């Protein structure tokens, strides 16, 4: 599932102004449009639905307090996703928790190709071995679809540093997933 970014953000420009002025209904519209997108990104970072939910729940009060600082409504989506991703990273760092994905015998009846399931589990475990910052980088790039400028802004690094880190990450994952 992917949010239809441009059109939605465009229609939400007015909602941003209203919400920044304290309008709860407008804020509800923003939540409706972006909550799912933020949760999906946080889940890839956290590897745990409950922690992802917690991160997004923590993000919305920040959004509410700071919405009046959003100068460019066109950047609403990356701004929101960045805040949620930041919360997810912080939660993971605080918990110092490594998610290990285990193969569940009970799931073998779902009809999913076992090879596909094992591949997904490999991916989940490879993600779990990464630093939360690296998982955030992957989630922002491939799930949220950030370009390199947005990635650099969201991660506090230079665009070239971000690109280099992303390239190294891809190499590492490629090796860990035995894709050669």
């Amino acid at each position, binding site marked *: *599932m*992917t949010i239809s970014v441009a059109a939605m953000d465009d229609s939400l420009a007015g909602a941003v102004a209203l919400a920044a002025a*304290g309008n*709860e209904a407008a*804020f509800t519209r923003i*939540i*409706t449009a972006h*909550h*799912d997108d933020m*949760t*999906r990104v946080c*889940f*890839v970072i956290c590897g745990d*639905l409950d922690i*992802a939910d917690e991160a997004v*729940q923590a993000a*919305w*009060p*920040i959004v*509410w*307090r*700071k919405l*009046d*600082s*959003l*100068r*460019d409504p066109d*950047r609403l989506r*990356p*701004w929101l996703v*960045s*805040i949620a991703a*930041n919360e997810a*990273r912080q939660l993971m760092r605080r918990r110092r928790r490594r998610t290990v994905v285990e193969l569940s015998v009970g799931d073998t009846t779902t009809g999913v190709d076992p090879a596909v399931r094992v591949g*997904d589990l490999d*991916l*989940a475990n490879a993600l779990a071995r990464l630093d939360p910052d690296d998982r955030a980088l*992957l*989630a922002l790039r*491939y*799930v949220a679809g950030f*370009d390199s*400028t947005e990635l650099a*802004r*969201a991660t*506090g*690094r*230079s*665009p*070239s*540093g971000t*690109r*280099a880190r992303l*390239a*190294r990450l*891809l*190499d590492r*994952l*490629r090796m860990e997933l035995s*894709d050669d």
Partner: protein
Amino acid sequence: MTDRLDFETRLEERLRARADLASRPFEAAAIARQVVAGQGRRARLGWLEWPTTRLAFRGLAVALLLAMALLGAAIGIGALLRERPPLPTSVVSNGWIAISANPWNVGGGENGDIYIVSEGNPPRRVIGADGDEVAQACPRFSPDGGRLVYGEGRATGTVTTFRGGWTVGDRAIVIVGVSEHGDPWAPLARVAIPAGQGPVVCPEWSPTGQHVAFRLGAALWIADGVSGATRVLPDVSAFGREDNDLEWSRDGSMIAVAEPGQIRIIHVDGGAPTVIAVEGGPPRSLGWTADDRRIVYVSVVPVDGYGSGVHVVAIDGANDTLLTPVANEPGFHFTFDEASVSPDGTRVAYRHGINQCTTDGCGSRPAPEPIVIADLDGSSRIDVPVPDDLVSSPRWSPDGKRLLLSSIVGISSIGLEPGSPVVVYANGTLGRGLNLEWSASEVTWQPVPR
């Protein structure tokens, strides 16, 4: 070798599929109600996660921070002038600047041509053409400025703008002569790389200009800079990571290659490599000191929970020293990256990032990140404030008097003195200049012997 682009595409699909597992019904109105009821608006901190603070406030903050940085830098320069002997007169001046850039529309099946950029003039493409389906990347001017070497290749699958995941066949390195106007005037050599796919090869000139070296799998290739005659040093890499750094020593007798957890010193004329163990993954930004006895590198190991630090280590692995400080103010973290050793091997320039963390999370501080110049013991530090968007990949000019800054928004340079005006050579992104999204670091400045 599996196509790296295919891997990236499949990874994206799998990550999105995994993310879809988190899509669940939610009650937006209830969330909003809870947030609004529980959170009265309060004064915001203003410099967190995303640089979208209102212009006036941000401008004031930036002005204050700039003033502080200028004051600090002025004090630093005073100390520098008192304590340091003058640098030797430079024997080279600065010529043309070349960079590889992506076309705006990669649908033509290629990714990367080579452009010459200069102040006040539009970028001029000198190598490559629309739709030629050949990519040119990683240009490097020779030490005498008279030749240019670059990697080239032909796309083997879907082409995207992402250089890191782009795979080509028919790979080669090409050496051309360069006219006084920066134009390639003659092909001198083309070293074809054996069949097989991989990223475009990035060659590096030896300091004498006699050879170029490049990594290919586990091997190090050294080609004659005129004839293209090649010899291969097999198994110099324990990991076969050809995209990691490679740096010639100043006398041309050694090549340092970055590997995960180590720097390997390859002796060009033979002999067992020397291995320097470093923490973490492959170090970055390798550079040799003036006497070729030490190597500067950026470690990927965070120095204070964030980012990375600039080190210098003897080539026997002794005295590994962290040159950059650790933040001592609660809530702040430093990152140092993209180090570049000066042409005379006595100083290092690097990017200094600052992250601020609060209970709301961590984010970069929207103040200009300075470029730092320091001696190789970390002393005589100067902070050169640079406009925020331009801070990236500082590289020394051939004469050692300027720093070339290449970022996604453009190519520019700045003098070493704080407050020096920025000279802009090319705009990037925004659809009106060069597309530098994934190639900003592939830039080279021509030395011109006096």
